[in-house]
């Protein structure tokens, strides 16, 4: 039996005390506090007792009780009660931290009249004295207390601390003299005659001697309006990286598009009375406009329902087929004799075999969430004609993943070791491989999809997960005929896939297997960037419950797109889930953007225009200025290092650190006072202003991937030369003087606006599930809350008719009560109409009738 303890830990104290008291034999090992001894616990704990059976005990009280028990002592209810209280209540209070060390002597409870006396008594027991000495060499109660108070809270209670303080810690880093001198030298290099970067010219193709980066973000499914989580998870993250890549002078291509095939589209089309193609057209436009508003700068935003898709998917299919990676098998499926088709997935409903929910779908029950095999449904019904389908077997093709497994593993090892894979991506992929791969069905008995070209499987289409990732290729092909230069060029092209973590296995296992099996020298993913989930105010985004902000609503909030981008990127779920919160958004806007970043840039510019006639003044750098240059340069290099590794959220903190340094710098040097002083003071004011304006110029460059509009505004205000970003982002990054003395700047104006508490409160109400009750209400009153053009048309008609009726009554001088009743009806209808048009159903304030 081994007992692991560490110094100064009160929990160890009591375990040792009991060991001493009971005389139980065990080896006592001292282990440092941060060593993990219990394999399944995520935090290291002490004490730990390794039982003879190999189990670990990692809680002090059970260890104590175990010692008591093996030494033949009884454990009564009262003892256990006190220990429970100690563990659950007492340990919570830091101030009481000195007590648990001694409460092991619970056989003394009957003597407990007052804490102090008990404490003294216990403390006086020789056994405690020995042990206390052993653990921390000091006997005095006072010193013990002090010692313990210095201890960090037990890990279980101090985990609320903010996660990543790295950036802030580094920000406080002291600069060495060499660093400071080097920063000064770099600064004076200036812009030299760096050529202006070339305009982006389409089509972008891989170039010899350049870093060719192909960036994709997971294809959003066409019939869902994306919510903020979807946006940050793929398109926005990919956009920041693509913009950054262009800034770094990489040859980057960023493609994305809507994923349009599948049963969900077919059903949606039926619901809205349109053809699937029309549905796709409609929602593709919705998606495109949302991303446009968010300033997602795709090189091409395409779609999967194209000729190219069919061509490329079928080519990959034949290659896989010819090489024996597709295996046929038959599957029992429901077939509707009336509609002449197999009822895949969502085309059939019936009673759930597990929970008897009457409207379970063919693939999954909405009530119990269980995955269902459609043939198991009780009383199945064709969703289209409501008739009972029959069971028929249908032949399908399966991608033989087991056969490709070793090839896949080999490639994965190479890709993961050289490329950038987020840890969740690595983990999910490994767990898939660990569980062993199984053949996956790649065909479906549907109509809306890419047709399977094999004659034996005519009338079938590819399953979306075989088909959709091929969309990356076909969308690139729609962009340029020379798409193969990107997609069949693994030596020259680095492929970055951005997605949320639920998409990982399809990008790291299934799709690479298709491409590996096709043996056509495809470019496989070398960097797989997966985010965790973004929650909404402590719950999940939910379309059906109306909780959360969806892409199309963000622009109705009157909050600029750049601020949305900033906040989403600020809480990008890197490494762990994060949550969107209105209050926090307002806080971050007001503290970081307005008071920190905006304030600094605005002050720098205002000083130059007010005190120096809109010109960058003469600068004579002193040690203090160079120290700032060194700090800023350090943050810039950090920023580049982080973004090279796609740590988008962390890199954003570097920007904020720079403006924090800048604000401090201005505050300490007080140029607004010095400008009124003598020549020397005036020169000092000039230097501080000049350096600050240059830092602002650097910030505009660093902000470009995150807040493109704000970045452009700053550049415009400062009249920054076009090649300045280019110069500073070379190599590891260097902060040079881009706005030399005499440079004329433009008109300075504030960049950000305060978000007021009332505004935020009203937004919170608007998006925070209030819609749920509104929807419930609408159920009763027939008042649809979401936009519904069909209904709106109908209501418009009704409003017109009712209006006529009211006018007619008034013309006839009918009874007042009658008129009032009809007017009320009219108002009700108008309200419904507003709702159906997707407007706020609040009635507009009544206009006074008197003219």
């Amino acid at each position, binding site marked *: 039996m081994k007992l692991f303890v560490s110094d100064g830990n009160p929990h160890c104290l009591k375990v040792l005390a009991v060991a001493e008291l009971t005389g139980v034999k065990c080896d006592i090992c001292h282990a440092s506090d941060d060593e993990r001894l219990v394999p399944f616990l*995520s935090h290291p704990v002490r004490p730990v007792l390794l039982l003879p059976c190999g189990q670990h005990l990692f809680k002090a009280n059970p260890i104590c009780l175990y010692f008591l028990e093996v030494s033949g002592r009884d454990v009564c209810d009262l003892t256990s009660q006190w220990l429970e209280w100690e563990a659950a209540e007492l340990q919570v209070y830091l101030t009481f931290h000195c007590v648990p060390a001694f409460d092991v002597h619970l056989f003394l409870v009957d003597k407990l009249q007052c804490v102090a006396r008990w404490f003294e008594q216990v403390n006086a027991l020789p056994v405690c004295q020995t042990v206390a000495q052993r653990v921390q060499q000091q006997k005095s109660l006072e010193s013990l207390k002090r010692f313990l108070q210095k201890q960090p809270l037990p890990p279980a209670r101090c985990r609320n601390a903010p996660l990543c303080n790295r950036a802030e810690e580094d920000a406080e880093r002291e600069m060495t003299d060499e660093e400071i001198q080097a920063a000064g030298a770099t600064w004076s290099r200036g812009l030299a005659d760096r050529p202006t970067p070339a305009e982006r010219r389409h089509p972008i193709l891989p170039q010899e001697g350049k870093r060719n980066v192909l960036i994709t973000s997971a294809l959003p499914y066409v019939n869902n309006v994306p919510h903020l989580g979807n946006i940050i998870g793929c398109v926005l993250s990919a956009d920041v990286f693509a913009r950054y890549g262009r800034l770094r002078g990489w040859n980057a291509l960023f493609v994305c598009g809507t994923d349009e095939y599948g049963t969900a589209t077919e059903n949606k089309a039926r619901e809205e009375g349109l053809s699937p193609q029309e549905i796709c057209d409609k929602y593709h436009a919705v998606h495109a406009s949302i991303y446009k508003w968010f300033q997602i700068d795709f090189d091409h935003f395409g779609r999967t329902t194209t000729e190219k898709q069919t061509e490329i998917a079928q080519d990959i299919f034949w290659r896989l087929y010819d090489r024996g990676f597709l295996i046929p098998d038959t599957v029992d499926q429901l077939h509707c004799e009336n509609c002449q088709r197999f009822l895949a997935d969502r085309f059939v409903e019936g009673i759930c075999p597990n929970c008897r929910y009457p409207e379970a779908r063919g693939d999954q029950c909405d009530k119990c969430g269980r995955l269902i095999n459609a043939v198991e449904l009780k009383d199945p019904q064709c969703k289209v004609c409501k008739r009972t389908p029959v069971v028929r077997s249908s032949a399908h093709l399966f991608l033989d993943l087991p056969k490709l497994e070793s090839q896949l593993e080999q490639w994965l090892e190479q890709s993961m070791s050289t490329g950038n894979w987020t840890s969740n991506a690595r983990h999910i992929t490994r767990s898939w491989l660990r569980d062993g791969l199984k053949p996956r069905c790649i065909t479906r008995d549907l109509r809306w999809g890419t047709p399977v070209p094999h004659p034996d499987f005519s009338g079938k289409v590819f399953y979306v997960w075989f088909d959709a990732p091929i969309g990356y290729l076909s969308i690139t092909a729609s962009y340029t005929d020379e798409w193969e230069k990107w997609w069949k060029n693994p030596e020259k092209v680095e492929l970055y896939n951005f997605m949320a973590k639920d998409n990982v296995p399809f990008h790291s296992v299934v799709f690479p297997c298709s491409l590996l099996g096709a043996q056509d020298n495809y470019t496989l993913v070398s960097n797989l960037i997966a985010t965790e989930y973004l929650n909404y105010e402590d719950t999940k985004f939910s379309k059906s419950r109306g909780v959360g902000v969806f892409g199309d609503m963000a622009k109705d909030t009157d909050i600029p797109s750049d601020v949305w981008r900033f906040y989403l990127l600020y809480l990008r779920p890197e490494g762990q889930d994060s949550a969107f919160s209105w209050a926090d958004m307002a806080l971050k806007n007001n503290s970081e953007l307005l008071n920190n970043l905006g304030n600094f840039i605005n002050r720098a510019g205002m000083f130059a225009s007010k005190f120096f006639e809109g010109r960058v003044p003469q600068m004579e750098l002193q040690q203090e200025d160079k120290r700032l240059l060194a700090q800023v340069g350090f943050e810039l290099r950090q920023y580049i290092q982080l973004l090279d590794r796609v740590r988008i959220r962390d890199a954003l903190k570097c920007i904020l650190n720079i403006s924090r340094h800048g604000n401090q710098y201005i505050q300490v040097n007080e140029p607004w006072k010095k400008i009124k002083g003598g020549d020397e003071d005036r020169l000092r004011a000039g230097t501080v202003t000049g350096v600050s304006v240059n830092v602002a110029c650097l910030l505009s460059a660093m902000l470009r991937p995150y807040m493109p509009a704000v970045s452009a505004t700053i550049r415009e205000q400062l009249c920054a030369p076009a090649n300045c970003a280019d110069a500073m982002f070379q190599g590891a990054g260097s902060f040079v003087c881009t706005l030399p003395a005499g440079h004329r700047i433009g008109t300075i104006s504030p960049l950000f606006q305060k978000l007021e508490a009332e505004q935020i409160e009203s937004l919170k109400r608007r998006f925070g599930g209030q819609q749920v009750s509104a929807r419930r209400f609408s159920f009763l009153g027939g008042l649809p809350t979401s936009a519904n053009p069909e209904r709106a048309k109908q209501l418009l008609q009704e409003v017109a008719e009712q209006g006529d009726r009211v006018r007619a009554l008034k013309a006839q001088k009918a009874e007042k009560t009658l008129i009032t009743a009809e007017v009320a009806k009219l108002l009700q209808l108008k309200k419904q109409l507003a709702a159906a048009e997707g407007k706020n159903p609040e009635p507009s304030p009544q206009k006074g009738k008197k003219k």
Partner: protein
Amino acid sequence: MQKTLSESKRCSPITVKSLPVRSNHGPAALQSPSNRAEQRSCPQWRRANMALMELASLEKSLGFKKANKYSTQGNNKSVQFDPGGDRKSMQRDEEGRYLEMLQQTPILQSNKGAPLIGLVTIASHLVQEAAQPELLGRTAEQRAVVRQWLEYRVTQLDGCPKEDIRSILKELNQYLEDKVYLAGSDFTLADILLYYGVHHIMADLSVQEKEQHMNLSRWFDHIQHYPGIRQHLPLVVVLRNRLYTGGHH
């Protein structure tokens, strides 16, 4: 094979007096005046219900014919619990706040002596009363392991901040990798109380998350189907077959 808990020896109910909460002795006297409960947004009685509901369920599982009555402590007034009442409101209408929930300490006063305070203590006591000591572990080692998980339940799991839930799930999942029950191969009180304790978390997990914590899900499903255990709690669906195909649509 599995013996229904309630098939075993029945025992007589314990007579109950209500307890003045702020007694001058016992743990209550030591409690800090700034009570944790006051800082939480959840109504106090509801929090209390959590622990009391569990004890009522445990009694039924153990085969008590008549329910004991409990009170809770933690605030200035004691809360009486009626096991039949207001279960509906316990259900998911408070999803979010479930996670923040802290337990109020339940109190049981039996006619055999001092009142018993604390979920684990009362539960262990009930198990003894029901003459099923094996539920506390068969060997000294096993008893230690059971105690450890009971303590884990009240210290780590209860009132666990939302952002820590993942690490708890991970720990449990990893621990259960090679075990049928928390104490190895025997069903114990630790399984019952931990099952009650993680129920609200499991109920909120997506199919995919449950799949990620496969060992935990397997254990959880096993326990909820263990005869007589589930009682007041709704069944949480745990899939036996791995799917992970529905990720896209």
